[in-house]
């Protein structure tokens, strides 16, 4: 005689399971729940405060107390467009950002390539740590150390002295060196990640097809790694664009960050209007970067 298994009714579902079933059936709701918190954060906290700042670019200020007065005006924008100093400073900053990006890309590529493709796993581990370490060294301390390095009696001039050369460190060139130094790890990491993704098979195929190292580099590696370079450049470009501390330490020249910082107390609306410049530049840069597929390489 076969015994018929007693079929027990399925256990009452816990609220958690019922919620999961609901989400399974209504995937849009699940999406909404996932997105609710991040979206609320972004929109309310971040874009909300940006909005508050940019709104003030349309206000005026009391000429004596510099308090913000809610009189709608385009004066601030007129001022930053028409006054030469604002244009000069913006252009100078963009140029510096571009030069720093190029320098960082050139310095980062060899080590990133070495780490990605040539080094043994052990060496690679050590190098990754070695590249990440400077991120933990405080930005200010690094900048101040460079101040000493660049000074009249500093390391660079001390090394150049026997050769009879002299380097005026407190200059735009000096600042370019400092920026290049500060943002270098941000360029190395994405390029390293990007180069790691290049399949060895492509390189072998290229060699099989008769290309020499340089051709392989120029026509296979570089195009594949380019999005990663652009991804790294987002950091080097934008970090240079807004910095005001390093320029203040190294040169006398004003950059976008220094102007915004200096006038923020007395002319907040003008500072807010002027911050539209880096905002527009960065957004444009991001659009271009996205087209170049850099977002996947961040």
């Amino acid at each position, binding site marked *: 005689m076969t015994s018929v298994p007693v079929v027990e009714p399925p256990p009452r579902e816990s609220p958690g399971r019922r919620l999961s079933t609901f989400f399974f059936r209504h995937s849009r709701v699940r999406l909404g729940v996932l997105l609710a918190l991040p979206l609320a954060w972004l929109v309310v906290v971040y874009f909300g405060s940006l*909005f508050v700042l940019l*709104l003030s670019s349309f206000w005026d200020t009391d000429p004596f*107390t510099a308090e*913000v007065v809610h009189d709608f005006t385009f004066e601030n924008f007129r001022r930053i467009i028409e006054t030469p100093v604002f244009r000069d400073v913006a252009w100078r900053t963009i140029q510096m950002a571009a030069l720093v990006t190029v320098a960082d890309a050139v310095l980062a590529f060899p080590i990133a390539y070495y780490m990605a493709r040539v080094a043994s796993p052990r060496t690679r581990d050590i190098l990754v740590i070695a590249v990440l370490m400077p991120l933990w060294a405080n930005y200010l301390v690094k900048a101040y150390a460079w101040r000493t390095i660049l*000074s009249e009696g500093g390391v660079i001039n001390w090394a150049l002295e026997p050769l009879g050369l002299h380097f005026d460190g407190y200059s735009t060139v000096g600042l370019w060196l400092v920026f290049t130094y500060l943002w270098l790890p941000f360029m190395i990491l994405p390029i390293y990640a990007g180069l790691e993704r290049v399949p060895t098979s492509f390189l072998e195929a290229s060699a099989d097809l008769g290309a020499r190292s340089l051709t392989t580099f120029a026509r296979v590696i570089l195009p594949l790694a380019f999005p990663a370079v652009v991804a790294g450049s987002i950091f080097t470009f934008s970090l240079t664009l807004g910095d005001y501390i390093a320029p203040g330490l190294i040169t006398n020249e004003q950059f976008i960050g220094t102007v915004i910082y200096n006038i923020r107390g007395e002319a907040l609306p003008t500072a807010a209007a002027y911050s539209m410049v880096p905002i527009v530049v960065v957004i444009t840069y991001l659009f271009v970067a996205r087209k170049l597929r850099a977002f996947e390489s961040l």
Partner: protein
Amino acid sequence: MRGRKVRVARWAAFGLLVAALSVVAAGCGGGDDEGGASTEIEGLGTSLEEIQTLARDEGEVNIVQWAGYATLVDEFTAATGCKVNTKDGATSDDMISLIQTGAYDGVSASGNASVRLMTTGDAAPVNTDFIPNYADVQEGIKNKDYNSLDGQPYGVPHGRGPNYLMFRTDVVPEATDSWDVIWDKSGPYNGKLSIYDDSIFIADAAVYLKATQPDLGIENPYELDEEQFTAAVDLLKKQAPNVGEYWPGDVAKQIQSYTNGDSVAGTTWPYQYVQLTAADPPVPVKAIKPKEGTTGWSDTWMVYSKAANPNCMYLWMDHMISPEAQAAVAEGFGEAPVNLKACELTKNANHCAEYHADDESWWEDVYYWTTPVADCGDDRGEVCKTQEDWEAAWTEIRG
């Protein structure tokens, strides 16, 4: 279809959000314009004893100061129970911004900050009954237009000093007595000038022009009409390429550059001079008030009208004008104290005499920092350049 509805809903939500934020932002923003002649600050005690008790509960005070002002801090904390946290301000504008964040209890305001703080209501009038040492402050410094309104004191004087011309004696002739070494005669020192990075420095150019171009008719270097202002700005633009560093209140930067020889002449506060001559080995510098006169400052401790720790702040103000603290800061910073009882306590018995604490005639050509306003204060009317104009000009001068 559903996608379109969702899209519309999203845009509607976004629009509502924008509208809501506009309303919020429109309602808020700007400073506090309740002037208020009341010395009442929320949380302030109603008697000296109550203030001392409440201060122990507060336990700390957050102060914006000029570098080097806070002295005998440990003694203060031991006596009152208030821990002192200081923030060095770079310029007066910087100090006003800091106070307006609402995170600080008080500030050592120079004239170009104090008047504005009084006007906006950020500084509260003080009840001098609660500040016992106030009675000993020099009469000549009380109830000035930069520390009082309509006879009501808005703070407690701290001390005063000039902005010196400081130069390295191994590069610049020791007998130098004029500002021309940083203006017309700066030739040999080009690239090694050290200039204060704030729009108020336009007044220093005006002081120089007052002596060298008398037909401009400059009387008060803070009240400049169009012609005078343009002349000052042009002078500064001519100087700008020769400046080695603009120091933004970061005294360590200037001290380091004079030590290294990167700067050989410029304008400075007495504090840097004291530090450089006290260094080991001492740096060969000399600091003078040149014959043309100079700008300077007479500073006032003010309490923020919405201070979180008003009781500790009141005790701090009393502490800073006590003879001991006045003596310490006068020598440490290199300024003239306002409580002359300090003169007996200074290590250098001649300090007060050397710093002209009691000699009003010496201060006649020291033009205290003050905020430029449109009203020239004389028969020219309201044609003078305002603080706003000075700021804008300074950005252009810096290039």
